[in-house]
């Protein structure tokens, strides 16, 4: 082990990435029945990871060239799968993001999950996630990335289905896993194609070879498109976008951690990881751009039709991911990554805020929260508003800077239609975010007769689980007695502050991050930043764009205020007047229904049915039939042995006679 201690960077990296794994193992094996201890172990591990990540960032921030450590994980003939660490600005940044968000979420969960019977299990899964995600982020090769990518999916499955008593949670987990798996198959095939065609899956090698045009272009295009399937699955792009909203069945901190800030961003991260590789194939980039745009627009519309607070943020996550993909696919490496960074902050913030509301009011429905007096929870309310402003791209919040960066890239793109789509998206984003904010802030006094289609279902289910939750909490001695107190921050004690501090930290990040745009850009692009001519920066020509974008955001807010915020607003939204459109949006453009039907008809009803019948009737039946035939022929032959002596003799003589005849003739 001495090699480990000789190099502090390596030591930090190993500690950073493997402590969470250790904590998972310890929790699962030893401290399953000691929830407090488990949480401390897990938080201890993740905070060490955070420290190490910070150390790595500081230590390596000025190293121009990527630092790589690798050891052979697997040697199989000509395929060598390395395990190792690749430190370059992108991975260091992402590592830090993951560490920070994981840490905050785990701390937050101390409050949110307090008293849950699966407390230890929860922290074990959290550790599993942290381990997998970090190892994925600093993977030096695509196969390691793929491996931990899959593990991240596993952690996501486990966390979504955390409330396993709840049927819908299990369903959602399954859906998430299978859908991402579908994308991963493409990813996997892409990697195989690359391994067979190119031979090296090292990220640096791939990128360099692609830039140097050492790989035939058809191979790049084919494998890039296949690999992009992985992005589609993991980052919930069209057409595999519906699992993400359902994934909100998990505990809210999980939604914050996995399904907004980090895990779903893995797709985008992977895209940016091998950005030069993708960039070498214009076809793949164009398709990615189209898919990102479709995703962004579709999910924005979906967000406008739901009343579930977490669903709104989920759709918004999908839409923002689409936006990032757009940015990357349009060639804006920094823009995409920057938006990924800021988005991680403010989206985690939004989810965690929502979590506080949900925790307090035991409801996911924004109307209920509003009526229940959501505005009285001041810290979360303020924080959430900050988050929403950032999401809408309002100056000076971080979202503003990153969105502008992407808009800038889109504007630089020859075809302006993508820019228009981006602007439309910004409008809708602002609209649905503030629709939510206003509905909580200014609850309508009289119960409106709203059409409750898809939303209703979730609401009821969630009510139920929240109640279960409460009972469990009440039954647990270690619970902090928050069950009965509502509405007053003062009365909350530890639990509330466990939840509040992360919010405050995140809010701060959201507020200040935007101003680090240029230093980040310099860090990420290194010396090349100058050569690129500051792709994300706004030249003089872009002021018009800036104004347009901001005004789109403000217009959205104003629109929302008109419909939901102002006194006497109907709080119905324009969609209520367009029932068909609303149904379309609320039913997610019928993508789910289509997939469901496909699954039922083609898989369950079709192939499965045919194969099962074939198995039972033809194959197995054939064999059983053959056996019965054998027994039956035994019965038939036994007639030769009738009891009668002379008949038997006749048989014998006939046989001899036949034989003799055969030989004589």
């Amino acid at each position, binding site marked *: 082990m001495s090699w480990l201690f000789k190099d502090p960077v390596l030591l930090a990296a190993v500690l950073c990435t493997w402590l969470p794994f250790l904590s998972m193992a310890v929790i699962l094996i030893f401290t399953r029945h000691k929830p407090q201890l488990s949480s401390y172990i897990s938080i201890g591990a993740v905070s060490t990871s955070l420290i190490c990540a910070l150390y790595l960032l500081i230590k390596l921030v000025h190293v121009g060239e990527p630092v790589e450590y690798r050891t052979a994980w697997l040697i199989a003939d000509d395929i060598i799968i390395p395990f190792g660490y690749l430190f370059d600005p992108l991975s260091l940044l992402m590592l830090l993001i993951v560490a920070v968000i994981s840490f905050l979420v785990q701390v937050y969960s101390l409050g949110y999950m307090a008293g849950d019977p699966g407390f230890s299990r929860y922290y074990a899964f959290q550790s599993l996630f942290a381990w997998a995600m970090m190892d994925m982020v600093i993977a030096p090769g695509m196969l390691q990335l793929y491996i931990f990518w899959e593990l991240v999916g596993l952690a996501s499955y486990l966390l979504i289905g955390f409330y396993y008593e709840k049927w819908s949670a299990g369903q959602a987990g399954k859906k998430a896993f299978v859908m991402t798996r579908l994308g991963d198959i493409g990813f996997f095939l892409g990697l195989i194609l690359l391994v067979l065609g190119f031979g090296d899956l090292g990220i640096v090698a791939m990128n360099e070879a692609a830039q140097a045009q050492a790989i035939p272009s058809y191979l790049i295009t084919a494998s890039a498109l296949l690999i992009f399937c992985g992005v589609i699955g993991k980052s919930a792009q069209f057409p595999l976008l519906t699992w993400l909203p359902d994934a909100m069945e998990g505990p809210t901190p999980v939604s914050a951690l996995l399904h907004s800030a980090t895990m779903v961003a893995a797709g985008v991260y992977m895209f940016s990881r091998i950005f030069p590789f993708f960039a070498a194939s214009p076809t793949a980039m164009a398709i990615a751009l189209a898919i990102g745009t479709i995703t962004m627009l579709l999910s924005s519309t979906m967000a406008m039709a739901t009343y579930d607070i977490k669903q709104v943020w989920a759709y918004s996550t999908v839409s923002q991911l689409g936006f990032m993909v757009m940015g990357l696919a349009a060639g804006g490496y920094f823009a995409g990554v920057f938006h990924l960074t800021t988005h991680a902050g403010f989206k985690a913030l939004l989810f965690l805020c929502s979590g506080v509301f949900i925790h307090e009011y035991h409801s996911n429905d924004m109307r209920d929260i509003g009526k229940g007096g959501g505005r009285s929870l001041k810290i979360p309310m303020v924080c959430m508003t900050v988050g929403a402003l950032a999401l809408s791209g309002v100056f000076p919040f971080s979202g503003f800077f990153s969105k502008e960066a992407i808009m800038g890239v889109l504007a630089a793109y020859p075809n302006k239609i993508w820019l228009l789509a981006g602007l439309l998206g910004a409008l809708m984003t602002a609209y649905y975010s503030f629709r939510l904010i206003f509905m909580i802030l200014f609850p309508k006094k009289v119960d409106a007769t709203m059409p409750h289609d898809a939303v209703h279902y979730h609401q009821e289910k969630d009510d139920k689980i929240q109640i279960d939750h409460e009972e469990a909490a009440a039954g647990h001695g270690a619970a902090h007695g928050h069950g009965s107190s509502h509405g007053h921050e003062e009365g909350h004690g530890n639990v509330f502050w466990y939840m509040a501090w992360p919010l405050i930290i995140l809010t701060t990040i959201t507020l200040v991050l935007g101003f680090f745009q240029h230093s980040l850009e310099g860090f990420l692009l290194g010396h090349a930043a100058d050569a690129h001519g500051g792709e994300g920066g706004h030249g003089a020509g872009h002021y018009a764009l800036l104004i347009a974008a901001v005004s789109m955001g403000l217009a959205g807010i104003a629109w929302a205020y008109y419909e939901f915020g102002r006194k006497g607003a109907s709080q119905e939204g324009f969609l209520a007047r367009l029932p068909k459109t609303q149904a379309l949006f609320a039913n997610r453009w019928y993508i789910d229904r289509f997939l469901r039907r496909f699954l039922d008809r083609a898989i369950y009803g079709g192939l499965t049915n045919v194969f099962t019948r074939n198995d039972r009737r033809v194959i197995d039946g054939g064999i059983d039939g053959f056996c019965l035939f054998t027994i039956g022929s035994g019965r038939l032959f036994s007639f030769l042995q009738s009891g009668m002596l002379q008949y038997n003799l006749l048989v014998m*003589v006939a046989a001899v006679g036949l034989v003799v005849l055969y030989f004589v003739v």
Partner: protein
Amino acid sequence: MNTLSTYLIIAALLFGLGLLGVLQRRNLIGMLISIELMLNGANINFMAFNRFLAPEPAVGQIITLFVMGLAAAEAAIGLSIILALFRKFRSINVERAQQMRG
């Protein structure tokens, strides 16, 4: 007429008739006699071969004598079994003996 094939044909006929008798007679004594016929067919063969072909004149005749002797013993055993059957079934019809089958 006095050729080998004549005797062989006669022997074969005798053998065939004996076989037919075994297959066709329902009377156990009849069957027993038919078996003797078959043996005698063989005996004629031995004698004929001995007479026409064999260098050592005695061999075939000796065999024939032995076969005759053994046939007698066979008949004795056969009759004793038939007797036992008769005591049980009061009949010497072979069709009485067909309980075991399959």
